């Protein structure tokens, strides 16, 4: 008997037969193949083992007859051995395979965002009402001029290195076409354009129909170099070299041949049906000097008109690495933390490798300032930015801007079933199955993204106003605006903040 068949399913599909009209809508809506008609009858059945609780059938049921609940079946577990441990062991004992997961880690690592408190002005430094007074959230990302030079007649010589100008310090994180669907990419591109910020192609290339949003696009170059050519590099507002990703530091990418079809293969510029393998390392980068070479070859290819970003995962010695990157000629460093999301990653890597973004960000900012090179680069933080307060805290810890991936997906309809790696997303987000992709309306998704970022920007202004700060510049690296609660001395030291009450 199959081991997995002897293991209880995670969820129960509860169908209220008084309400069910056997219309079969749930059969059509489920991307995971849970619901079906019993052959030759009008009776509905559910294969609960396939259910990931994506909520699609519940939302679609016209009579509200469905409910997905955690399986009530008692599973023997202990404080050492959870049901999830046991299920994974059974799965691997049966298949001999490496565990694969989608989205960010589910493990309970400390969330420092929730242990940091924001200051407010009282009496001596009046707070500001953002509805009455101008609040500046415009952010420039890139290298700042090291020195001010004037020409013979005293005019400023403005040979500033290229920058990205963001109307709000929020970028959309890199998510490739192939991992997510075309309407998702279109929605991100159009939202970024409307909001005056940027989205990121990820490493899957840029679809020809989206070139028109190039002024708000960051094009990515990863080790597999998929879809990278002169026009692609010229199309974007900036070029990002992907070294690592918070959800899977040290791991490359692998788009299975089955997913590499149609437009995906054309956009990646590889034959249909072949595996798209991004090796873990760039085989031409073994040192900061080598990184510098790639940075400058990309600058040459884009005529020094576009900033170059380098994205790394937050790992143990991230501060030293970032210091090297700042000296490599890169204009912007993107640091992606332990809790960042992914379309697919080996579970053990996702759940155990890297460090939280809050500590990494604080350590990098402190190190770059110590070395006097903080103004050589822009700093972007990502990996569980869940709300506007997280953004304010990130900026106070030293970020110039943040990137949001999971939050953007949720705004487009993601229900966090952590099953991106199956390619069966019922919401049309993390899938390439045409009948599922069609479900995502890019107009609606774009509107939701715009709403979310607009709302967060308003909240950032509120929080800034409360602190008596009217410009995001004055918040950046302003750790006096933060206090820690329930943190150890080591954590406070690394974060560079004092304990609440101090």
């Amino acid at each position, binding site marked *: 008997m199959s081991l997995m068949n002897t293991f209880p399913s995670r969820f129960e599909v509860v169908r209220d037969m008084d309400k069910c009209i056997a219309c079969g809508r749930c059969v059509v809506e489920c991307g995971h193949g849970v619901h079906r008609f019993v052959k030759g009858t009008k009776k509905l059945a559910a294969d609960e083992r396939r259910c990931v609780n994506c909520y699609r059938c519940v939302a679609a049921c016209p009579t509200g007859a469905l409910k997905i609940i955690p399986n009530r079946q008692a599973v023997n577990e202990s404080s050492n051995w959870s049901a999830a441990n046991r299920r994974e062991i059974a799965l691997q004992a049966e298949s001999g395979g490496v565990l694969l997961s989608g989205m960010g880690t589910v493990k309970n690592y400390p969330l420092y965002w929730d242990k940091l408190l924001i200051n407010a002005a009282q009496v001596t430094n009046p707070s500001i009402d953002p509805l009455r007074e101008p609040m500046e959230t415009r952010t420039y990302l890139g290298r700042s001029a090291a020195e001010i030079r004037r020409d013979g007649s005293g005019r400023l010589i403005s040979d500033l290195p290229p920058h990205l100008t963001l109307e709000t310090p929020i970028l959309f994180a890199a998510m490739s076409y192939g991992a997510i669907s075309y309407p998702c990419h279109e929605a991100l591109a159009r939202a970024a354009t409307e909001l005056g910020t940027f989205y990121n192609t990820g490493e899957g290339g840029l679809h020809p129909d989206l070139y028109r949003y190039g002024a708000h696009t960051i094009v990515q170059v990863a080790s597999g170099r998929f879809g990278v050519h002169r026009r692609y590099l010229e199309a974007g507002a900036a070029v990002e070299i992907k070294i690592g990703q918070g959800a899977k530091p040290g791991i490359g990418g692998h788009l299975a041949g089955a997913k590499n079809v149609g437009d995906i293969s054309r956009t990646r510029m590889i034959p249909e049906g072949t595996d798209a393998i991004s090796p873990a390392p760039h*085989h031409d980068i073994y040192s900061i000097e080598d990184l510098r070479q790639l940075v400058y070859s990309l600058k040459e290819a884009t005529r020094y008109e576009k900033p170059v970003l380098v994205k790394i995962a937050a790992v143990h010695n991230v501060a030293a690495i970032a210091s090297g990157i700042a000296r490599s000629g890169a204009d912007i460093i993107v640091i992606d933390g332990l809790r960042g999301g992914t379309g697919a990653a080996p579970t053990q890597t996702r759940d155990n490798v890297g460090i939280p973004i809050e500590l990494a960000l604080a350590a990098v900012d402190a190190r770059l300032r110590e070395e006097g090179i903080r103004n050589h680069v822009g700093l972007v933080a990502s990996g569980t930015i869940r709300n506007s307060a997280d953004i304010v805290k990130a900026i106070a810890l030293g970020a110039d801007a943040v990137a949001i991936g999971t939050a953007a997906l949720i705004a487009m309809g993601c229900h966090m079933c952590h099953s991106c790696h199956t390619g069966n997303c019922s919401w049309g987000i993390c899938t390439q199955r045409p009948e599922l992709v069609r479900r995502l309306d890019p107009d609606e998704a774009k509107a939701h993204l715009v709403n979310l970022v607009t709302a967060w920007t308003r909240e950032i202004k509120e929080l800034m106003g409360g602190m008596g700060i009217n410009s995001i510049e004055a918040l950046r690296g302003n750790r006096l605006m933060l206090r820690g609660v329930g943190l150890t001395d080591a954590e406070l030291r690394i974060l560079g903040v004092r304990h609440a009450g101090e």
Partner: protein
Amino acid sequence: MKIDAQTTDPHQLPRLIRQAEGAVEVDHCLGQRFLGTALEAGRTLTIRGVPGNALGAYLDGGVIEVYGNVQEATGDTMNEGKIIIHGSAGDATGYSMRGGSILIEGDVGYRAGIHIKSYGDKSPVLIVGGAAGSFLGEYQAGGLILVLGLGCEDRAPYGYFCGTGMHGGRIVVRSDHIPVNLPDQVVPQDLTADEIEALRPHLEAYCEAFGVPMSRLLPHRFYALTPNTKSPYRQLYAMS
């Protein structure tokens, strides 16, 4: 247009080449990097001396001919065009190239042709006259790497870990030697007379570029390394 690299600011040299119209010749080249980046179709660049790293990166149809050796990362991610090297080439030559061809008269360093791939009507060709270093054609996904092994007839003309992670394309070698420690992911097989004949246009391109008589290459044993379908480069995943 003719440029003397010796008397030109090395940081300005790539820009001068980019902005020039028509054919460009660079003399006395000595380690200047990023020459001919993304050079378009219809442009030619002739270099005498030794250009530095990342020559012809993202090449987009241009033709680069070098009378001398070249350093690392030549033709990185090139899309189209041709690079002819009258000498030897350094490491990571042709990294991730998607189209066009690189012809090297002599030897090539480590990690040549890593991750080269084909797409549509594009199929990159990397021809090495002499021998290649280790890690040749790792992660190869498409295209052709042709190693002629001239002057290296007593052993396999490439080093360790040839074709690790290979999942497409071919490495063709003119040699009597197949190392015993080839990675599991590649299988060697001798070329038939017809297959060698099909290779002739590439051999002719080499002979023509470097003035080598065909009699030095043929007749000879050739064998191909292709991905081993029985031991594919893939991780087995457990999906619940």
